């Protein structure tokens, strides 16, 4: 039996049931007597209403109950932010149900509970709500400010005063979103005898959401259990505390039967967090030789109708990560997070970074074009060379200090591995070919603590309990590998349990590329502690030094004398890993595209990513993460857009119009994973690998298209119409 420890690529623990159709996603989960909830949503982007007449709906076949804001405690308590909190923004939190005014198309106004989803949809048509449409605000420049922040370091004015050249540009990143293929869903059941609630369908942050639900109900957390089943992708949006996360448990208590809710795609596209919509007005000051002197950016972040759980995370990350891998003598960033009558926003894979990497990397190309400098050399000249590097910005309340890196080394490796010179020759062979390069710094491992417990059974099996969550990324597999390495039992002997608040006392979940770094370090700590305890006690029994012992599934024996052995003890050990700082992986995207100016089509000829992630636990999974992240980034660069009409009605309201990339849109990705700069912040040295595939796709593709057409690209997505317009400009 192979160990399959850190650095190996064992076949995933997760796959077997998923391949056989034996998984349990939330829609597959049933409880006896279960009924179905339908969330009735506003058809208007902004309207007043005074009355919800449910009399006809309640008479419809199979209808059990109707819940409106009037039925909720305090008519609905606002859902709090969980990170990047901003006192001023607390006025704009969303309540579970609209109470007299709706502020986006898709806002929940009522919940119908019926014997089936079919019957609930029938009844919803009988609801009578006296909407009176109000004026809508869609332009982020015109909306109410929910959050405002200025970050300044260095002498910005002096930097701009002494510049040879100042490049000034406005950039727009369109609204798009995570859009996992499984929509959200919940099943909630109230046990009247123990006055306790169980909610299945949790994801990402079960313990955090248990706390929020307890807070909204005014309960003690111990009466609530959240359980994660199979989860069909998250990418930032799934698993946050949404209105339904209160409404479905509440409905279950009201009707006294288990209540199931499965979001359909039509609602999901309007209800789940959107992301990314920003307008940047940015200025770059530099010397004639390409040396950067200063960077100034004022941007608006369209956060939609309410401030949701992420608070100011997206603009906050944008402002702190805009400087990227370059040394800036002076930097000033300012954001306004703005309310509009659109779906509220949260994070989407590489939040803030996809946006600012596009802005910064495009701006640098414009500068290079203006000054006649080589696009690689202008970047190389300005790379940060000394680590740790304090950027002077903050992530939430923690300083953004790049922990380790060798940026020029990765640049050299990338150019060589991907044959940049050959690409240049390819480009020169024909018109309308372009190359784009974009550098980035990612971040990994937020939420400063994580929990792990390992239970060893005398049969030689170990069970890892982790506070991280599985969204499909392979967390069971990699945590088992970490455990295998540090406990010394083979991978196949290790089981990983996650996402059940009854089995795991605490956890911060999986987001921001934290599971491998924080969860991995906690498992490593617990495994090492467990191994030590096992060996020490065996050493006593066998009268040998711990270093002379061999730990195996069938027991601990003395090296070279296998007959001198004791069985493994049944033992449980827990550990917590705490780290206030983040890890900063970094990388390079390289795009080679061919543009058809007659149609506006962009064909990606080659796409390559070089990514230093400190240390790689499972190369197969890392490659999968980067390839999948790249596909999402490509969707954002070329295809996906949540646009609205003048009344605030979503134009991309189905998968016919919200265009996820297909197998014919995503080319094979070339990938170089390096481990040149392990993180000094955790004993594994890992930095997390979940988001680098997405981070710079907008920047690299936009740079390549600009290069192909000889024009400056300032807006995403690069739809055929936009590309044709650029080609004709």
């Amino acid at each position, binding site marked *: 039996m192979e160990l399959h420890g850190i650095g190996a690529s064992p076949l995933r623990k997760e796959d077997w049931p998923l391949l056989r159709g034996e998984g349990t996603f939330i829609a597959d989960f049933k409880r006896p007597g279960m009924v179905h909830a339908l969330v009735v949503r506003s058809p208007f982007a902004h309207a007043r209403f005074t009355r919800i007449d449910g009399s006809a709906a309640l008479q419809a076949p199979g209808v059990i109950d109707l819940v409106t804001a009037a039925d909720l405690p305090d008519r609905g308590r606002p859902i709090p932010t969980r990170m990047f909190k901003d006192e001023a923004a607390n006025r704009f939190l969303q309540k579970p149900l609209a109470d007299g005014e709706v502020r986006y198309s898709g806002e929940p106004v009522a919940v119908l509970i019926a014997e089936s989803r*079919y019957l609930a*949809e029938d009844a919803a048509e009988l609801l009578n709500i006296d909407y009176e449409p109000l004026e809508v605000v869609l332009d982020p420049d015109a909306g109410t400010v929910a959050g405002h922040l200025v970050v300044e370091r260095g002498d910005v004015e002096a930097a701009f005063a002494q510049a040879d050249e100042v490049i000034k540009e406005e950039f727009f990143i369109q609204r798009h979103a995570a859009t996992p293929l499984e929509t959200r869903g919940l099943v909630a059941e109230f046990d009247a005898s123990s006055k306790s609630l169980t909610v299945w369908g949790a994801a990402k942050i079960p313990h955090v959401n248990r706390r929020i639900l307890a807070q909204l109900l005014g309960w003690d957390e111990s009466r609530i259990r959240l359980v994660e089943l199979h989860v069909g992708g998250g990418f930032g949006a799934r698993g946050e505390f949404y209105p339904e996360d209160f409404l479905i448990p509440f409905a279950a208590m009201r009707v006294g039967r288990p209540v199931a809710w499965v979001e*359909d795609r039509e609602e999901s596209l309007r209800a789940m967090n959107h992301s990314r919509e920003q307008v940047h007005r940015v200025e770059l000051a530099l010397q004639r030789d390409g040396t950067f002197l200063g960077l100034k950016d004022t941007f608006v972040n369209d956060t939609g109708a309410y401030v949701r759980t992420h608070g100011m995370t997206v603009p906050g990350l944008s402002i702190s990560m805009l400087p990227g891998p370059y040394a800036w003598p002076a930097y000033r960033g300012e954001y306004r997070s703005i309310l509009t009558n659109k779906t509220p926003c949260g994070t989407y894979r590489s939040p803030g970074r996809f946006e600012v990497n596009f802005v910064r990397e495009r701006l640098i190309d414009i500068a290079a074009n203006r000054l006649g400098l080589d696009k690689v050399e202008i970047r190389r000249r300005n790379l940060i060379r000394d680590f740790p590097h304090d950027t002077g910005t903050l992530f939430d309340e923690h300083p953004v200090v790049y922990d380790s890196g060798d940026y020029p080394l990765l640049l050299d490796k990338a150019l060589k591995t991907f044959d940049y010179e050959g690409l240049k020759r390819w480009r020169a062979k024909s018109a309308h070919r372009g190359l784009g390069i974009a550098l980035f710094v990612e971040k990994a491992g937020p939420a400063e603590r994580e929990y792990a417990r390992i239970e060893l059974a005398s049969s030689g099996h170990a069970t890892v309990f982790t506070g991280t969550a599985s969204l499909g990324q392979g967390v069971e597999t990699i945590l088992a590998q970490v455990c295998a390495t540090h406990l010394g039992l083979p991978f196949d002997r290790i089981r990983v349990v996650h996402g059940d608040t009854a089995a795991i006392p605490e956890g911060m979940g999986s987001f921001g590329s934290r599971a491998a770094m924080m969860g991995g370090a906690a498992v490593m700590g617990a495994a090492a502690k467990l191994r030590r305890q096992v060996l020490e006690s065996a050493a006593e029994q066998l009268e040998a030094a711990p270093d002379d012992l061999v730990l195996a599934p069938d027991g601990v024996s003395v090296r070279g004398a296998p007959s001198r052995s004791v069985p493994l003890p049944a033992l449980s050990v827990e550990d917590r890993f705490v780290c206030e700082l983040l890890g900063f992986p970094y990388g390079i995207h390289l795009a080679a595209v061919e543009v058809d100016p007659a149609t506006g089509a962009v064909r990606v000829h080659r796409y390559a990513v070089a990514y230093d992630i400190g240390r790689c636990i499972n190369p197969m999974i890392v490659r999968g993460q980067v390839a999948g992240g790249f596909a999402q980034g490509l969707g954002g660069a070329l295809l996906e857009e949540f646009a609205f009409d003048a009344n605030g009605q979503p*134009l991309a309201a*189905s998968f*016919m119009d919200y265009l996820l990339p*297909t197998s014919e*849109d995503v080319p094979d990705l070339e990938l170089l994973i390096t481990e040149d700069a392990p993180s000094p912040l955790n004993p594994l040295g890992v930095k997390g690998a979940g988001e680098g595939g997405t981070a710079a796709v907008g920047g690299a593709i936009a740079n390549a298209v600009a290069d192909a057409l000889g024009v400056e690209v300032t807006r995403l997505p690069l739809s*055929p*119409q936009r590309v044709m317009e650029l080609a004709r400009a």
Partner: protein
Amino acid sequence: MKPAPFEYHDPRSVEDTIGLLAKYGDECKVLAGGQSLVPLMNFRLARPGRLIDINGVESLGRIRVENGRLQLGAMVRHTHVEHSNDIAARWPLLHEAIGWVGHSQIRNRGTVGGSVAHADPAAELPCALAALDARFHVLSKRGPRVLRWDQLFVSEFTTSLAPDELLTAIEVPPQDPSTGVAFVEFARRHGDFALGGAAATVSIGQDGRCAAATVALLSAGPRPVRADEAERRLVGARVDEAMIREAADVAVRGLHPTSDLHGSSEYRVKLLRVMTERAVTRALQRATRKAA
């Protein structure tokens, strides 16, 4: 996203079908492959009181060739057209157009009659059939009718079929084997409805001049567009690059395709011009190759 309730009929014969249509008329909708109708029903954008499911009417599912004319039963699935060697050899334009329809799962279920009756101006088949001067056989208790494409297609999602009428077959005239054909389109993703596209046929005479030409456009207006003026200019001309550019220019003159999220009307006109140019060029190349 669950459909509203409806009454369901599944007749086994054409006669029973038109009987039901005569009886229920307006309140019913014919269910063919369902690949356009069922999504609309799931969104509750369509909510017919009765569905007349003609999947059990076997006589509608046949492909026949009679006197050189192709007879496609209304319930012939896209996949059968796609995999018919006879159609590929004798009606290559149809074969090429079908390849652009949706994805395999859609083509396995979708039918030619359903596609025609749905009358989506962005759909491939109506455009190809317009280029091929197909005729549409329609039946009701009142008797049969045969319609030209311009008599059948009225506007977006609207045909001249009366509520009691059933489209039973599509008849495609024989194609001159020396004709070169091409069907091209451009969509944001392959399998999506096209932002613009064109079907072209070109025949070259003994004298090297264009003996016959057709140009039809999709996503160009409320129904398929035949570019008559472009066709007139091509016929009798020595078709070279300049001639093709000229034909493409006149083909899109006066067009006002609908703007949407994926492309403005102006963009679509420019695209249609390019599609026309590419379709005619490719058709010409194929005709020239056949002549050689």
